[in-house]
């Protein structure tokens, strides 16, 4: 692993808060892991058509209502940390200037 890995930036991207101490440990561990997995570069295998021959296929369901509306509302809302009526309550997402 030639480049330095910017763990703080990765943490921000993945919505993780990382302490200074943990950051120091991760700045060694993650490059170690990356230099270990880098051996795959020696393998053949083209990245151009990853699906070819893989046997993978898309799985779709029929259009339409899979179940009547509201059938699972109570069970799912019961698990939410905060709610208001039939809605999950969250902090304001968009602020007016």
């Amino acid at each position, binding site marked *: 692993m030639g480049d330095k*890995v910017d*763990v703080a930036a*990765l*943490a921000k*991207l*993945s*919505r*993780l*808060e*990382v302490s200074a101490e*943990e950051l120091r440990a*991760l700045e060694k*561990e*993650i490059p*170690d*892991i*990356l230099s*270990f*997995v*880098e*051996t*795959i*570069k020696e*393998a*053949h*295998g*083209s*990245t151009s058509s*990853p699906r*070819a*021959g*893989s046997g993978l296929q898309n*799985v779709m*369901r029929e259009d339409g209502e899979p179940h009547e509306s509201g059938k*699972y509302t109570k*069970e*799912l809302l*019961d*698990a*939410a*940390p*905060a709610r208001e009526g039939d809605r*999950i309550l*969250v*902090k*304001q*997402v968009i602020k007016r200037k």
Partner: protein
Amino acid sequence: MDTMQLTIAEARRALDAKEYSALELTEAHLDAIAKKDGEIHAYLEVWADSARAEAKKADEMIARGEAMPLTGIPLAIKDNILIEGRIVSSASKILESYRASYSATVIDKLRAQGAVFLGRTNMDEFAMGSSTENSAYGTTKNPHDLARVPGGSSGGSAAAVAAGMAMGALGSDTGGSIRQPASHCGVVGLKPTYGAVSRLGLMSMGSSLDQIGPLAKSVEDARTLLASISGYDENDSTSLPANSEQRTANRKLRKVIGVPRAFVKSGVETDVLALFEETLARLEKAGYEIRDTEMPNVAYSLPVYYVICPAEVSTNMARYDGIRYGLSVPADTIQHVYTKTRRAGFGAEVRRRILTGTFVLSSGYADAYYRKARAVRQLIREDFRRAFDAVDAIALPTAPGPAFKVGEKSQDPLAMYAEDIFSVTANLSGTPAISVPSGTVEREGKSLPVGFQLIAAHGAEETLFAIGSDVENIK
């Protein structure tokens, strides 16, 4: 009643012959838990009351002559499989008090048979790990030596079965999480063909790799459990349809086993390798042909796995953000609710994999890491496809050594990852694989079990059961 030796097959016979009741069978297991689990810590929660109620219902089914293979059989369930109304935490702080909103398909299937659920078992947090040391609720101990780990991530399930605290258990296997603890605890563990068992209600870790499977005391019991949980599920888009070629594979046993010799020698402990060779020699005596098999790309399995798995982890773990369920740490802004909840809720290995996965998927690196890994994975699948033209199964050690000491590898992520060297390849190829006990090795005066692994073609679980039974019988 000796719950240590009792198999599901024998209990079925005795229950149907009314030699004892399902309630007595459940009580015997609850007694074993009360006696042993203080030391072993296989269970995160024991459901004694509901287990007794389920056992009584099973006794009624038996009395009416409606017994099915698992009616009245007490089982343990890994803590990442949902049972409606029950806490299910994946051994994580982020789901410490989360109650399942619905039941997994495998649970509905077991319930329909009248199986008894003893409790939920300990594991590495979100199934990331090979020792249960990554559990937020303490490490499970190996019943063969309490100073050692049971393996992982389904370590609680394996230890519960090995210590006679459950007749069988469900685990999940993303890179060896059923087979490696089965090997370390001396029980049978099966990872089914990808898509054979519904994953509805299994918490996702690596979605292209995860499968639910059984841990049991015998190959026959593992077969009974698999038959009870497998099948198409329209609610799981990765579930194989009933008429899928990967379900209906009907292979005549040629009695030929392939061994990728060059790969086997990489990093396996001397006496474990000797035991592996001894098992092969015995199979040869029993009429099998053992053939060297070229699989040039399987050596890349571990590095490929540790790109693909973290990539999928980083996306799957995004759902735990303190908004819809689970832990939620109050904060001034929604951004801080996310970050503070995830800081308080996730342990070190989960964070490590999220960050590694975020890196290998990030713009500028995805070609060199994630897409390259996906391409090499395809080569590994091809290696298997070619091999199965000539052999029934590929044999490998399950793990490079026996159970290791608590704390021995927990501070060194790469040493822990190396535990998975022989097991991840079956997840990458989607093929079924089984670990069967094949003898013991000595470590510091203790006899520690070692598993023998067999991998067969997609849908060829019956091949694994046939050869696996022979491994059991030739010991």
